[in-house]
């Protein structure tokens, strides 16, 4: 028999310190968890974990505060950017971020996100676009794809009466006070790595006081899409990415020229 012995072993990856020891309530394979992980890893690497204040929103991520090992508040539906404003204005040297779904940010919270961005609040927004209302059981979101069936568009989103998906990264990019607005996806390792880089850039921009930063992440909802976790990733790649092109919609010069001491 042949056995393998491994020497000089070192840890290549481990659960981020920024996480508590609780198991999430997310469905198996839901990429909300991936997004959480990237945020936690980033704050760890930047040494910001103990200097951060997170603002959880209302949606499947309502309990995200349970999973991040840092100070957290829980906002009303859609109002996380306003709540973050109230915090950041009195604690300007903390890393303040919101974590919001597409119903939260792009539907009920449209005014708050637009104005936080318009004011150039020096906060970071992690925006989970899964094209659906996860928590309430699969209703149409402002980002639901045309023709996509949801419990409130049972025959598929009818663009005549229910409109077209909103592309938030592009919309926010039109605002002068935004320093960073990009879209990434969580459907495969390469894209996940890019997403993490973007999250890092966003927090770095905040650390330097460059103003509002937002990372939109295309994310899955296996449960309400009625798919396996794997098929969900394929759906992101094949259906969502074409409708929500990945890319940098706004990166101001000050952000472009940031030198990041990579962790």
């Amino acid at each position, binding site marked *: *028999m*042949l*056995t*393998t*012995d*491994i*020497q*000089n*072993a*070192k*840890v*290549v*990856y*481990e*659960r*981020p310190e920024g*996480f508590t020891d609780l*198991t*999430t309530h*997310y*469905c*198996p*394979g*839901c*990429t*909300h*968890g*991936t997004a*959480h*992980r990237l945020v*936690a890893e980033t704050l760890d690497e930047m040494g910001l974990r103990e200097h951060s204040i997170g603002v959880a929103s209302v949606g499947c991520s309502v309990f995200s505060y349970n999973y991040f090992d840092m100070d957290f508040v829980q906002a009303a539906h859609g109002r996380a950017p306003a709540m973050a404003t109230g915090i950041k204005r009195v604690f300007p040297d903390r890393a303040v971020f919101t974590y919001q779904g597409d119903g939260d940010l792009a539907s009920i919270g449209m005014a708050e996100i637009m104005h936080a961005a318009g004011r150039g609040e020096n906060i970071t927004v992690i925006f989970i676009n899964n094209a659906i209302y996860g928590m309430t059981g699969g209703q149409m979101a402002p980002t639901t794809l045309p023709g996509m069936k949801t419990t409130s568009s049972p025959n598929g989103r009818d663009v005549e009466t229910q409109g077209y998906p909103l592309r938030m990264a592009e919309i926010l990019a039109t605002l002068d006070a935004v320093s960073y607005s990009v879209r990434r996806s969580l459907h*495969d*390792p390469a894209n*996940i*790595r890019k997403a993490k880089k973007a999250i890092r850039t966003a927090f770095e921009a905040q650390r330097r006081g460059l103003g509002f930063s937002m990372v939109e992440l295309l994310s899955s909802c296996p449960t309400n899409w009625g798919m*396996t*976790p*794997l098929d969900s*990733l394929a759906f992101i790649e094949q259906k969502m990415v074409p409708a929500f092109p990945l890319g940098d919609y706004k990166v101001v010069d000050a952000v472009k020229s940031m030198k990041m001491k990579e962790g």
Partner: protein
Amino acid sequence: MPVAGWIEVNEKFCKGCELCVTACPQDVMSLDMDRLTPKGYHPVRLHVEGCTGCAVCAVVCPEAALTVFRGDKILAGV
């Protein structure tokens, strides 16, 4: 000496979603159908040799359930 690795699965967190299984470039992972986690899922495991410690599995894991190790591989005959 060739590089080698292995993973540890924290069964408290693993939900058996199989995203890592598909992502693993070495195809060395699979669900352990004989085990159930406390939450009632079949956890993932290394079912065959060949892990390189590349950590791609950890990159895709939504639950941060994996720890990845890497080291120098020594083949020892018995």
